[in-house]
């Protein structure tokens, strides 16, 4: 799509923000040819479900996974303690651009 509003758009070198971006997915999605991960099963596929907090602010005293693990088809239960034991630190998450970066 041509930028017929080029006079009010930010300069090209500033990236795609504020400009038209040509969509590549519409033909596939609008004709019912989208392929979503919930639609197919691969050999050996496993499924993960998150256990979520019902509390707005609470101390995690104990997470008992023994009942869950005793159920059939179970492969694993992971908690924050497992992450710590494996040395998995916080994920990068910086929504603001720091003054000392570009």
């Amino acid at each position: 799509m041509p930028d017929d509003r080029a006079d009010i758009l930010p300069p090209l070198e500033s990236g795609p923000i504020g400009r038209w971006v040509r969509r590549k997915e519409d033909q596939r999605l609008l004709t019912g040819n989208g392929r979503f991960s919930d639609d197919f099963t691969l050999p050996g596929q496993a499924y993960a479900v998150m256990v979520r907090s019902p509390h707005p602010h609470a101390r995690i005293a104990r997470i008992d996974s023994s009942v869950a693990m005793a159920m059939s088809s179970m492969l694993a239960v992971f908690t924050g303690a497992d992450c710590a034991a494996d040395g998995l630190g916080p994920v990068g998450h910086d929504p603001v651009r720091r003054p000392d970066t570009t």
Partner: protein
Amino acid sequence: MKLTARDGGAVFVGPQPLLPADRVRHVGEAVAMVVADDVAAALDAAEQSTSNMRNYPGH
């Protein structure tokens, strides 16, 4: 646009652990991940884990 803290320094961005070890900070925060061979079993186990959790209100 660059954001700064009130004193002009860096904005505080708290750590974002994959799963929290000590406490939860919002309703719906993930505390555990169960993995199973089929989706029904995974959902059942996740439900079972919730009912066995011992969470206490924070301060």
